[in-house]
Each structure stands twice: as C-alpha cells, then as structure tokens.
C-alpha cells in the first residue's frame, strides 16, 4: 500500500484545518472499503489520511421536524438496522444494504459511497431520487449542494481542498410517497452494480402519480435523473403501458460503456427493466391499489 500519514481529528474544525493545510494529497477515511483498495494500486501516491469517524455526529442519524440528518460516516450496517429510517426511505436503505458483503457493510458508509463517486455506486441514485442534500463544511464556511450536483464525473465530486462532507439531509416526504432501488448483478451478492435504478413516487388516493423522481446508475459517468420517465408517470396511474414507457425512457437516457461487467446493449436494456420494476415496487409501497 502507498505510504500514508494518519490523523483522527475529534472535531470538524480540526479535520478541515488538516485537509486545508495538507501538502500531500488529502484523503478522507470513512469506512475505507474503497480508499484502502485504491491505495493498494501500483504507484498509488503517498497520502495524508484523515479518519473522520471520531468526529461527533459523523456517525449519527437523527430526525428533526424537517427531516433526517445523516452523518456521512455511519456504517451501512448501523444505517440499515434503523427501522425508523427504513419505514420512510425503504429504497435508500435497500441501496445501502446492497453495498458489498456483510463485512463491507460493517465499514462502508453512505458518505464514502457518495464521495467516492463511482458511476456504479448504489446509494447515489437512491439519494438523488430522495432529493438528498449535501452539507459541506470548509475553510470558507458551510454550503449545501443537491446530491445530483455533488458528483461531477467518474470518481469526482465538487469538494474543494479543505472541504468535508459534514452531513446529508433528506426532507421528510409527503404522505403517499415511497421509494425503491433495484440493481442488476450477475450473482446474488458482492458484485458491483451493472445497472441500477432508484425511484421515488408520490401517489394520491386514487393511485395517480403526483410526483416522480427517477435516477439511474452504472449506465453513465455519473448517476442521472430521467425527467422523460418522470413526465410519463406524473398524472397517470401505474399501467403496463406507462411502465413500458418508463423503461424505454430509462434505456434511452442511459449512455453506458462495455466492460468486464456488462456490454452497452446489456446495460441499456437492463436499466430499463430495473426502472420499470422499481417503479412498480415504489408504487406498491406508496399505497397504490393496483
């Protein structure tokens, strides 16, 4: 592994100072399930590693009137045990639960998954579908950025030197809203998503969709929203025709690559299938009578 110096600050301010002053490339250590692997790559440069797990609040998840404030370094294992979060955001919890094995779950975090910004990250589509906001703290103060703007490219996010993802916030959804996340992998566990789809729907008492947010992953450099699919849904009840339209819109919006995990054609087709299926699940959860 590349050489590193290790810091474990006890406050956000200390962390920000260390990150801002770093002369070596600074790396934030949350669960380490991506960072440690990256530092083992041949010719990985020496780094300054800032472990944020000892900072109060970074591993907590708390509700307020407005919604949920999530510490980015909370492990998926802890996060997915929270029934109070699962009952409101089942899809987001599903997405977090799908990251790797039980062992990876014991360390990996939503914040780490987001900041690492892999095109195939499982939580990013689900965070986007749920309109999650990133709270960023840095030397110049605090700013907020929606998740879909936080990720800027393959493995890239919008954090400047010295900045830290301090929290994720999710507004409490309106009644009749539910989410779902599905991904495709060749085995039943462990694999990186070949395609992923997250859907959040709000239905009214007649089962008509009032609001939809659809984000697809692993089929473009970053997770992307599919406004065309959302438009197909809004104002409609969930029918086979609507679902077929949603699937097609998702496939059309995708711009995947071929690699050892899937071909362009395969990913494009499957993301449509997943979007359709996730829409159905979200709708069922939102209390639709189908």
């Amino acid at each position, binding site marked *: 592994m590349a050489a590193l110096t290790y810091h474990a600050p006890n406050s956000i301010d200390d962390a920000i100072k260390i990150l801002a002053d770093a002369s070596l490339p600074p790396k934030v250590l949350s669960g380490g399930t991506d960072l440690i692997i990256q530092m083992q790559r041949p010719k990985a440069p020496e780094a300054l590693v800032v472990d944020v797990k000892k900072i109060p609040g970074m591993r907590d998840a708390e509700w307020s009137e407005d919604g949920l404030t999530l510490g980015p370094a909370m492990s998926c294992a802890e996060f997915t045990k929270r029934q109070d979060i699962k009952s409101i955001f089942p899809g987001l919890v599903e997405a977090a639960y799908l990251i790797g094995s039980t062992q990876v779950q014991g360390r990996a975090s939503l914040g780490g998954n987001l900041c690492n910004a892999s095109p195939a990250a499982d939580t990013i589509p689900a965070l986007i579908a749920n309109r999650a906001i990133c709270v960023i703290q840095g030397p110049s103060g605090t700013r907020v950025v929606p998740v879909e703007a936080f990720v800027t490219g393959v493995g890239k996010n919008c954090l400047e030197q010295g900045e830290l993802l301090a929290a994720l916030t999710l507004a409490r959804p309106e009644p009749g809203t539910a989410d779902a996340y599905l991904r495709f992998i*060749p085995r039943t566990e462990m694999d990186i998503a070949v395609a992923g789809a997250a859907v959040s729907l709000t239905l009214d008492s007649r089962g008509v969709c009032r609001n939809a947010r659809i984000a697809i992953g692993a089929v473009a450099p970053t997770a992307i929203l599919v406004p065309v699919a959302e438009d197909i849904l809004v104002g409609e009840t969930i029918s086979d025709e609507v679902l077929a339209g949603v699937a097609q819109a998702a496939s059309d919006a995708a711009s995947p690559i071929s690699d050892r*995990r*899937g*071909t362009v054609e*395969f990913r494009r087709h499957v993301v449509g299938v997943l979007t359709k299926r996730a829409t159905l699940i979200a709708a069922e959860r939102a209390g639709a009578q189908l």
Partner: protein
Amino acid sequence: MSEAREYQHIGQRTIRPDGFDKVTGKANYGADLSIPGMIWGAILRSPHAHAKITSLDVSEAEAHPDVFAVATYQDFPSVNAEAVAAGTARKDLFDTAANVLADTKVLYHGHAIAAVAARTEAAAQAALELIQVAYEVLDPVLTIDAAIKDGAALLHDNMMTQGLLEPASAASNIAARMELKKGDIDLGFEAADIIVERSYETPTVHQGYIEPHATTVRFDDNGPSMIWCPTQGHFDVRARVAQLLNMELGQIKVVASEIGGGFGGKTTVYLEPVALILSKKSGRPVKMTMSREDVFRASGPASASQSKVKIGAKSDGTITAMQASLHYEAGAFKGSPMGPGCMTIFTPYDVENMYVEGFDVVVNKPKAAAYRAPGAPQAEFAAEMAVNELASKLGMDPIDLRLKNAAKEGTQTIYGPKLKTVGLEACLLAAKSSPHYQSTLQENAGRGLAAGFWFNIGGQSSVMIHLNPDGTGSIIEGSPDIGGSRASMQMMAAEVLGVSPSTLNPIVADTEHVAYNQTTGGSRTTFATGMAVIEAAEDIVDQLKARAAELWNVTPEQVDYKNGVAYNLSSDERLSLAEICAKAEKTGGQITGRANINARGAGPSFAVHLCDVQVDPETGKTDVLRYTAIQDAGKAIHPSYVEGQFQGGAVQGIGWALNEEYVYSADGVMENAGFLDYRIPLASDLPEIETIIVEVPNSFHPFGVRGVGETGIVPPLAAVGTAVSDAIGLPITSLPCSPPKLLELIMKRG
C-alpha cells in the same frame, strides 16, 4: 471383498483428527510460518503479454542497502538433460524453469522475470522498481483461432507439432496433436439415422483456491535446505527444485503445510525455487507470497477449449458413431490436458465407432495447470450437450438414451483398456428414481442432466504405523491432506487393527520422514494411500499375532486376530492390541507396520448430475433451483467427506457454467484478476446440493474404494448448460452462460 459387509468404523462420520486445529485457527497454512532472521522476497512481473527481453539489468537493485539478493533465470544451474531423465524427472522441466523465471521471452502478462529479497515486504516491492528491463514487444496471441492461423506470431520459434501424420515442416503454436480411434467412424455415421453436430467453447477458468501460493524457505549448506509450502505434492516440489537448482534429493526437505485448496493448481512450483535461490544467495530464510492478483495473472488456470462434436444414432437410440475434434489452450508453454480430454470425452458410452483428434495450442496466457479431472470437463461438456440434443431430437428421455448406450464392465475404451466393473448404470438408475428427477419441474424452469467420467489413478504411497506401549499410535503417511483424507486413513487403519480411530494419530510427514508419496491428485489418496495404510496395518496384525504366539508359546498359525484382540486358538487365552504392545519390549521391541506400494487397480468413478434452473427472460440471469449429484464411490469410507467432494465439484462446475471466465483486453491483460470480478459461486447463489452415493465396489481395493475427488466437476457444465437451454428454448454452445450472453440469445430470438 466386493460383497457388502458390516464394518466397525468404515462408513461412520467421525470427527476429523485435524479438525480442532482448523476450527480454532491453530492450523498452519503456507503463509503462516515465520522464522527468525527471515527476509521477504518479491517478484518482478512482465507488463507485456508477449515480448522479447532485450536487456535485463539488476545491478541497481543488488546495490541497494535494503536488498540482500536478486534472482533471475541465470541463477538456474544449466539443466542437464540426461540427469533429468532419471528418477521422477519430467520432460517439461525446461518449461517449468522458464515459467518460474523468464529466460529470453516473456509469454504472458504477469510472467515472472526476476526476484529480490529485502528486509521487509515493502522494501522488496520498492526494490523491484530498480530492475531495468528492456523489451521488444510482440503481438499477443490470445485465442486458439489467432494461434493457429497462418502468419500468427509464434510463442516458441522451435515448436514443431508432435503427433502429426506427416512431420511438421515449420514451427507453429500447436505443440501437439493426438488421435484416438476405435472401430470405423465412417461406417458408424453411415449406419446412423440421425446426426447431431455442434461446436462448443469453454473459457479459461481458475481453480479458485482461497489460499494464495506462499512459501518460507531456508537454504542450508550443511544439511537439507528446508522448504515450507502449501502443496498437493511435496515430493514433487522436492524433485522439481532439485532439478532446477541441481541439488540432490537428500539436500532438500519439503514440509507440506496445511493447504488452503489446490484442485490441481498446487501440483507445480512457482515461488519455491525462486525463494530458495534468494535464500542461498542471501544466507537468510526467505518468505514469499502471491497476491490474489498474482494468483490470477500468473498461476496456472484451466485451459479454454473449442470442441466440435458429431454423434450419429439409429432412430431407436443406439449410438453408432461418436467423433470429436478438440482444441485446448495450453497457455504460454505446451502441456494442456488435451490428452485426458480425448480419452475421457466418450468413455461413458459403449459405442463401436469413435474417432477423437486433439490439439494442444500455446497462447499468451499463463501456463495451464491441472484443475480437477483436467481436460475432462471441457470435453465431456461438449459430448453431453450433444447427447442431450440427440435425446431431444429422438424424443427419448436423456437417462434412457444413456442407459441404452452406457459403458459397463467389458466396454472397450477408446484409449486402450477394457472397463472393469463400473457404476454408470447404477448412477443412471439412481438418477431416474431420485426425488429430484421424480419431482415436477417448476413452471418457467429448465432441467438438464449429464454424465461424467474420470479414470482415477493409483501410484506410489508409503506408510508407516508406529504403535506405542499403551496401544495408541501414529500413522505416518505422506499425502498432503486437501479435503479430510487423514480421517479416512485413521478409519481404515482402525478397521484393520480393530481399535478406536481416535487412538491412531495420522500425520502427513515431510519428505525426510516418510518415503516417497506421489502427489495428492488423480483422486488417488483414499484409494492408494488408503491401500498402503491397510497393508501397513495388516503388517502390524501379522506382528501382533507373532508376538502373541511368542507370549503363549504357540505358533502364529494358532493365533487369530479379530476386532483388536488376539485369540489363542488352542486355549481360551486372549490379548488385546494394547496388552501385546505393553509387552513389546519382551517380545523383540516396539511394533511398526509399513507398506511402500505402487497401487494398481484404481477404479474409475462415474457420475450423473441433475440441475433445475430458472432464467429471467428480461435480464438473462440464471437461478439454480435444485441440484443433485449422484456418483459412484465404490465404498464411502467417510460419507460426509465423499458427499463434500461431490458438492464441491458440482459447485465449481456450476461456476464454470454460469459466471466464471478470464476476461482479457486486446493487449492480453487480464481485466478481472480478483474475486470481485472473477465470480465464483457464493452461498446465496446456490440451493442445497443433494447427493446420492452409489457404491459399486472396486474389487482391487480391500474396502472397494474408488477415488471420488475429480469426477464431480465433469457433469455440471452440461447439466447446467442443458437446463439453461431447456429454460430459454435455445441451444447453448458457449460457456459461461453469463447474463449478457443469455439475454443476447433471448433477444435475437425475439
């Protein structure tokens, strides 16, 4: 010996003697040994799939203060061709040397070029950067088609195909051709009413043992040098290292550590000769390990294959002709298991007319190594798929078609011998009446079945059993235990001696403390080493009788020995084994039994597997719903470990059929060199693996044992392939049946 009989211990499910250490973390595997003064070795690996090494300069590395020694191919003393012809030498020694450390060419990405030994692992890795290598990069040859076409870049300028009808006139990438025949293949096809002809392909796959290669060695000028390594054959490691380093066998002691999986992949050498050179040059013990990535890039996988199969049959299902042309990828050096593939492909069938031609082809991939019934899964996949297609075309049940043509006692094999008693028919009948086959297939599911064959071998095993004055004892054997064989040795000795198995401690001794034992492979251990254990125990029984006779002042013929007790036939005196041992000092000294044998009469093991799958038509993903493995064990010494072999082989085969493959870039770099993207089956991917042990005893073994370790990987490729084909209603000819491939087939059909 072939009739069913009551056994005291054989057939029980004892707790394995090495179990306590294995469940507590105490057992020591290849990477677990550290010695005072130890330094670390690391290997420089080729960044090119095919290149000439135009210069290699290690001087900067050698000069570094942290570096103790550097090794290259030049450190192999010149290998004397006559010397290696003696003893257990192998013709592929030159290839082994150049694979362990490249000589003038690098032949695969990851090919070892040089090694350094330094104070720490990190220092050794850093020192590799100081080695200067210049290359003339050549075109990589990555497939059989690319290797055999005209004008292909040659891996070895002097490779002249062996076994051609006319001697080769020019070098090529085909190392060898082989031909086997029986009867008259043309007449056979003329007599056929229906012919099935198809081409199949299987990918490069890895044995997937969870323990990477590792070794700790200490070179010693004054006594045997010591090599500690996880290996299936420590005597073979000794022989190869001795030949490569020009040492006598007695100058090397190889200690077989516990081994974390082998499946054939740990029957050669990679790190050991290099580590010993570094130890010799540095004067320090040296430890080396392979990373998981190195294991994939540079240890020997199982050959990819292309097979063309043609089968002809009468409309009543009598098969009249079976023909195949098989191409195997050997990797960088000759020696794919093309031969066993040709020999096994049609052996489950008693058919008069057969013709098989095979080709061993080199490509710029790591040198292939054995993998559980080497060559057979690839070949029998093709044959069994074609036979299933034939059954379907004839409207015949695939079991009935096989029963009609099943190999049996007296069947003339294509490779020479006639089969003795075998259990294929019994397996087919067990399959037919199995709960699985009797069950209604789930809706939207597919079902497949396939047969499988592997010869099994006997060979040399040496065993001593020492008894202590209190009647306990040790079984000193030399077969590295890859799956629980020590339990079976304990049971077989206990059965003969009539004592409780836990009183006998089986030990896998190092090469100094036991005579030669052939590699644990070929499903030989329970059969051949078991036979030696039985003989050694019988030797003890003879001695016990003689000692009792002396104590009773009678002749040994007047002594009977049964269930651990010696009986004086001319009186009612009796002595237990423990009592005789207690008096051993008085009757001539302590008691040791021994047997050094070359076991003959290994019985082949046939198997039949059943598989139900469901395929998601929108994504091409396959779920295995139900799986049954039926196999002839002759006599199951420890049923749990026999079942375990069936299940382990089945799951490796399921992985081979569904998701496992080496993915290469156009430059010849493996893109999925890790367990994330080289996808072996997980616990959540699988259902229960039901097993049925068939016992058609092998009369050449005192308890009727047939080896079972290998056959189990043969049927799953076609059992799964046929099930998938049945589920999607389309032919399957290419493994793995990965989701993108299945989806493409499904969508093309529309």
